[in-house]
């Protein structure tokens, strides 16, 4: 990233919340401004106006999660700035960068997806490329964000000298392997029946989608576990209280995020039966993630208050 671009992204004028407003206006503008796919209108038996209203309604939960992600990023950025130069400052800086990648990534991915969907609706030959780019962007954002977050949480457990216990690691490994096997089985089975969901052959799907996705989840869940451990044993009565709120937030946000990606990659949008209930489940998980992000933001706010007292 060039110093000029980095300067713009981190300048005081361009605060995270201002970025949220700019990107949300662009994304919602694209979703409502671009003409709907005539084939989709025909298939759904609805008018163009009804289509746009439906898009707006479907965008609401995403708007909530984008807002929560930018809010958490803003609060974390403020807190990590107050402890810059200290050991825990380095750890929280890494978590903040990860949160920033997640905030910018989520909304940018949605905007790119809308643009590519529009191109694909006019040029059907572009559909496979559109689906592949969309899926890879999803994986990339999670991978980069959770790697940064995990670097930060790992550093915190080293500082707090509270390494994960063997029993904890064994339980973690057991749960993660179970999740990975079930996810792989569901994705490959569905892929065998509906090639158009991923437009990749099976080896490529496993190597470039399933493995990186599972690795991102591993980093995410390990981060939640490590941060929980750090918060549980942290010294300082008032510090620990603020940290615990942040810790609940990070655990809820990460668990909700993994569950939401699990559902969206295995069931939702790909199963015609009870699609409504699956969408509802996915939205409930998105709201859970948003709640986790808000808790993180409130925890960061309390931690910042300690640094300013």
């Amino acid at each position, binding site marked *: 990233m060039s110093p000029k671009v980095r300067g713009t992204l981190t300048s005081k004028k361009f605060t995270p919340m201002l970025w949220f407003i700019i990107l949300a206006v662009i994304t919602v503008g694209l979703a409502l401004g671009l003409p709907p796919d005539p084939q989709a209108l025909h298939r759904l038996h609805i008018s163009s106006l009804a289509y746009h209203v439906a898009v707006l309604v479907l965008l609401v939960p995403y708007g909530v999660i984008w807002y929560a992600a930018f809010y958490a990023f803003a609060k974390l950025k403020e807190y990590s700035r107050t*402890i810059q130069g*200290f*050991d*825990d400052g380095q750890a929280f800086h890494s978590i903040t960068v990860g949160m920033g990648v997640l905030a910018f990534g989520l909304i940018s991915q949605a905007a790119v997806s809308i643009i590519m969907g529009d191109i694909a609706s006019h040029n059907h030959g572009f559909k496979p490329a559109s689906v592949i780019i969309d899926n890879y962007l999803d994986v990339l954002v999670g991978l980069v964000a959770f790697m940064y977050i995990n670097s930060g949480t790992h550093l915190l457990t080293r*500082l707090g000298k509270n390494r994960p216990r063997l029993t904890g690691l064994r339980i973690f490994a057991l749960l993660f392997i179970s999740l990975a096997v079930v996810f792989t089985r569901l994705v490959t089975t569905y892929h065998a029946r509906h090639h158009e969901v991923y437009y990749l052959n099976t080896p490529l799907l496993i190597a470039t989608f399933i493995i990186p996705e599972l690795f991102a989840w591993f980093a995410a869940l390990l981060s939640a576990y490590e941060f929980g451990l750090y918060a549980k044993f*942290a*010294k*300082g*009565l*008032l*510090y*620990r209280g603020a*940290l615990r709120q942040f810790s609940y937030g990070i655990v809820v946000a990460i668990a909700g995020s993994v569950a939401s990606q699990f559902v969206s990659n295995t069931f939702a949008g790909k199963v015609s039966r009870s699609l409504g209930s699956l969408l509802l489940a996915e939205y409930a998980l998105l709201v859970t993630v948003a709640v986790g992000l808000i808790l993180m933001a409130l925890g960061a706010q309390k*931690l910042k*208050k*300690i*640094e300013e*007292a």
Partner: protein
Amino acid sequence: MSTQTRDSIYDQAVRITYAYLGPAASRFINRQVRNHLHKAPEDMTTKDLVRLIDWIRLAMSLLTDNSQIVEEYIGQLEQVARGSRIK
């Protein structure tokens, strides 16, 4: 670290604060000394701590509504200010 440094007023104040603010303890004491006494934290004396206690009580009251915690903390700082060693 020498015994003298370990037992300085500054170190004792940080050690007491650590039980409440954890890793933020040294930063908290540094800030109080710099902002209210305008001197280097390491140069803090017993007299300085006496002058600082009211500021610290005020700062802690902003962080918690639990007055028992604040008074317990201030009590320990007062002991140091009176010259009693805190372990």
